[in-house]
């Protein structure tokens, strides 16, 4: 009998409660709001408790006798694949432990928050079903011990994100955003699946530990040339595939476009996607697979592999690129969305230059403060909607402060202002989250994790002189400056000064003791505190004063998570230069933002001062930034429209018309065909391509769509015919008929099928 109190088995249970809750909510409790909420919350709390037990056990072991290479976990046979058996299992190593701190906490807070946020939504029960499924999938992904199980969680999350982003599907834009998120990540997922398949083909296993603790295997993979792209090694190609998967999931350039649109979903979903799950999953997977990506390379000595370089360049570029865009956004959630992309770029870039632990650290702290920021912004939006409602009751019609005749937009920061005193708890949450995002020195979690990335990048780039690290450092420093700047801009536009609209003036969360305000503000306080203190688990040991306070026996996070890898990454000596850089960019950005936006708050209808400043250089700068550098428009032109064209022209016109039509007609009208061709040729020449062909296409399409008669028997007949063909081929193998016979029989059958088809169609035509 399995002893569930044994820590090796406990991880199996962590994802179960939310998955169970999802099933319960969808099948049973979906008529009752009260039951649904209770189910979801109980499940999430159970998971959180189990994760915390696991966390404490793991930490206890780590500081008792060091967790190096040790891990909790167990496996069970899953399925037989030919002669090998595939193992399913769970694994809790230091990296998982770190995630088990952040993910269940964030999920729990988001769930509690959702109770308030969705309290008045007509489909709130369904919302909780999806959220529970989402949470379960993320936890499954975190505890998975092999790439396939991880991928399952990954895909389930993809589905949930689709349904949650498009949750308010009555809105055309929400529905479109859901599809966009799904399609964009799908592109990357397919490539990632290729990588997984290739890895399995090469190694025969997908278990993390079996691959990463087998140095001969990794070396072999790194030495072997890849099947395609000869310049790469096998490990390199697999790594590139996996990194592309992450580029999609973690919304890195050029697949970042889905994430800002994902703001169409309810705000708890945004928090879930941006903090606890989805985008974190991408980076988590990369951190998980790091030994493979690093195989054959040594970024600490200037040897980079293809996936590492890809990550470094893409990550650094994305970090700066989206930070620039964020400066020019006015939608409160969109700014946060671009900041997420930017921060994920930080992590990717850090991984690319070998700053493994720094990336993991930033992943954890970012998860916390970004969840906090999103939930605060949700509270702001809620308050604004409340205010608009209120203003309406008093007979005011609320207009957008920036002119225009559209519907009042409660998410537009230009409509806000002066909310500081009206929703103080939210102000506290937003302030702490924002300062952590900006990396406010010494007192926020974001500072310590960013500082670690800077320290590594500085050391490798300017200390050792490696080009990619130098590149990363410069871009990230610029991005960090902009981050601080736009964070202050956001804080100022939302909270400072006087209300710019009637809605902002009336904004509130509806009294202190309502469901909405209680459930929405509680999590903000918890996460607000966490965003301040979570950074102290990873203070460098010889950092002045703070190192002595928090890291007397060495950097705890560094030592702990380092145990995930077969070889501990080196600890850097303290260097004052990157720390100064951190100070300068964070404080500098905040100060500039303060001068521009806080000291002289915007008045209603006043243009953005940054825009005015930039317009003096060139009027196009701001336009390009606020339009996100037209990436969406570019994709529309380059991918969406051509593929629509392709499906219209190539598939329906060329393949349908020329290929299929051709075959049928050749057989049917051999006798009359030449004359017909002559006639048609004449007509084409005379009438021109623009006239004859479209008509023929239209006629053909009208004729060809009759294949879909809706008559099940006809479908079945075709299916049986196809089965016969397959059957014949199998029979050929079974009794060893000579290949020629099989070929002739197959050809005969195909001819029969085509002829029968044709007869059937003509019949259908007559019957119509």
């Amino acid at each position: 009998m399995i002893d569930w109190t044994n820590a090796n088995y406990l991880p199996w249970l962590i994802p179960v409660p939310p998955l169970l809750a999802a099933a319960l909510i969808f099948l049973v409790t979906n008529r009752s709001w009260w039951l649904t909420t209770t189910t979801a919350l109980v499940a999430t709390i159970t998971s959180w408790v189990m994760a915390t037990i696991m966390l404490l056990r793991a930490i206890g072991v780590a500081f008792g006798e060091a967790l190096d290479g040790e891990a909790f976990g167990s496996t069970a046979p899953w399925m037989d694949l030919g002669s090998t058996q595939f193992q399913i299992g769970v694994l809790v190593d230091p990296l998982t432990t770190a995630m088990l701190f952040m993910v269940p906490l964030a999920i729990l807070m988001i769930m509690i928050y959702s109770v308030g946020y969705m309290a008045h939504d007509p489909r709130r029960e369904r919302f909780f079903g999806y959220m529970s499924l989402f949470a379960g999938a993320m936890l499954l992904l975190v505890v998975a011990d092999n790439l396939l199980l991880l991928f399952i969680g990954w895909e389930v999350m993809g589905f949930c994100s689709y349904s949650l982003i498009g949750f308010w599907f009555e809105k055309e834009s929400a529905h479109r955003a859901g599809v966009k998120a799904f399609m964009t990540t799908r592109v990357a997922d397919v490539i990632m699946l290729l990588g997984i398949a290739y890895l399995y083909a090469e190694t025969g296993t997908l278990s993390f530990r079996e691959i990463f603790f087998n140095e001969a295997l990794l070396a072999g993979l790194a030495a072997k040339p890849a099947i395609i792209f000869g310049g790469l090694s096998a490990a390199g190609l697999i790594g590139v595939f996996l990194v592309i998967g992450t580029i999609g999931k973690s919304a890195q350039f050029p697949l970042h476009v889905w994430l800002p649109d994902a703001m169409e979903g309810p705000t708890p979903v945004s928090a879930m996607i941006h903090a606890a799950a989805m985008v974190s999953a991408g980076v988590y997977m990369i951190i998980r697979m790091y030994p493979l990506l690093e195989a054959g390379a040594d970024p600490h000595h200037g040897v980079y592999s293809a996936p590492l370089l890809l990550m470094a360049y893409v990550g650094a570029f994305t970090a700066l690129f989206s930070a620039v865009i964020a400066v020019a956004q006015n939608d409160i959630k969109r700014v946060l969305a671009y900041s997420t992309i930017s921060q994920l770029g930080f992590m990717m870039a850090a991984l690319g230059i070998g700053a493994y632990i720094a990336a993991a650290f930033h992943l954890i702290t970012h998860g916390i403060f970004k969840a906090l920021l999103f939930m605060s912004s949700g509270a702001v939006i809620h308050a604004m909607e409340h205010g608009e409602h209120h203003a309406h009751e008093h007979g005011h019609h609320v207009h957008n402060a920036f002119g225009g005749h559209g519907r009042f937009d409660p998410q537009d920061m230009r409509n806000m202002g002066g909310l500081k005193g009206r929703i103080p708890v939210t102000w506290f949450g937003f302030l702490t989250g924002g300062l952590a995002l900006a990396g406010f020195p010494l007192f926020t979690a974001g500072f310590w994790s960013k500082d670690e990335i800077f320290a590594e990048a500085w050391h490798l780039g300017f200390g050792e002189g490696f080009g990619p690290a130098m590149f990363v450092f410069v871009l990230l420093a610029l991005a960090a400056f902009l981050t601080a700047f736009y964070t202050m801009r956001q804080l100022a536009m939302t909270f400072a000064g006087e209300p710019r609209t009637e809605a902002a003036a009336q904004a509130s969360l509806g009294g202190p003791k309502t469901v909405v305000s209680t459930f929405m503000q509680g999590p903000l306080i918890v996460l607000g505190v966490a965003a301040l203190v979570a950074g102290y688990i990873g203070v460098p040991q010889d950092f002045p004063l703070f190192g002595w306070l928090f890291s007397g026996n060495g950097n705890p996070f560094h030592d702990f998570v380092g145990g995930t890898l077969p070889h501990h990454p080196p600890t850097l000596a303290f260097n004052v230069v990157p720390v100064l850089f951190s100070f300068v960019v964070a404080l500098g950005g905040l100060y500039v933002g303060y001068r521009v936006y806080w000291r002289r708050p915007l008045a209603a209808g006043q243009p953005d001062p940054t825009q005015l400043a930039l317009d003096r250089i060139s009027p196009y700068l701001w336009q390009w930034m606020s339009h996100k550098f037209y990436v969406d428009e570019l994709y529309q032109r380059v991918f969406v429209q051509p593929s629509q064209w392709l499906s219209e022209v190539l598939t329906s016109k060329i393949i349908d018309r020329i290929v299929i039509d051709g075959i049928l007609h050749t057989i049917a009208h051999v006798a009359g065909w030449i004359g017909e061709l002559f006639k048609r040729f004449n007509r084409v020449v005379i009438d021109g391509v623009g006239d004859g062909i479209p008509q023929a296409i239209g006629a053909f399409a009208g004729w060809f769509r009759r294949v879909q008669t809706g008559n099940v028997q006809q479908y079945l007949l075709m299916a049986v015919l196809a089965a016969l063909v397959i059957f014949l081929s199998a029979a050929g193998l079974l009794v060893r008929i000579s290949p020629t016979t099989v070929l002739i029989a197959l050809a005969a059958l195909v001819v029969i099928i085509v002829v029968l088809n044709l007869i059937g169609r003509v019949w259908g035509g007559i019957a119509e």
Partner: protein
Amino acid sequence: MVPLWMFLLVAAALFAIGLFGVLSRRNAVAILMGVELMLNAVNINLIAFWRYRTPDTMIGQAFAVFVFVVAAAEAAVGLALIVAIYRRRQSVAVEDVNLLKW
């Protein structure tokens, strides 16, 4: 003594007959009957192979039992669908039930 191939032949013929019924009859009830014939043909095959190859295990019979179960479920649901469709459209001809097209 009856050799194995005879059973297989009967099963194949019964299957083909059922297939013809499924593909050609207009009445949905008749189509269901055809399906029952095909399922029976499968069962004959299962039992024949069980008898001639593995009579000392229960695998063939157990499979046949499960085919029974599925057949019963299929008949119940299928006929319920037919009754429901008839109530709505006053017809059980499959070509009248062709909304899902084009």
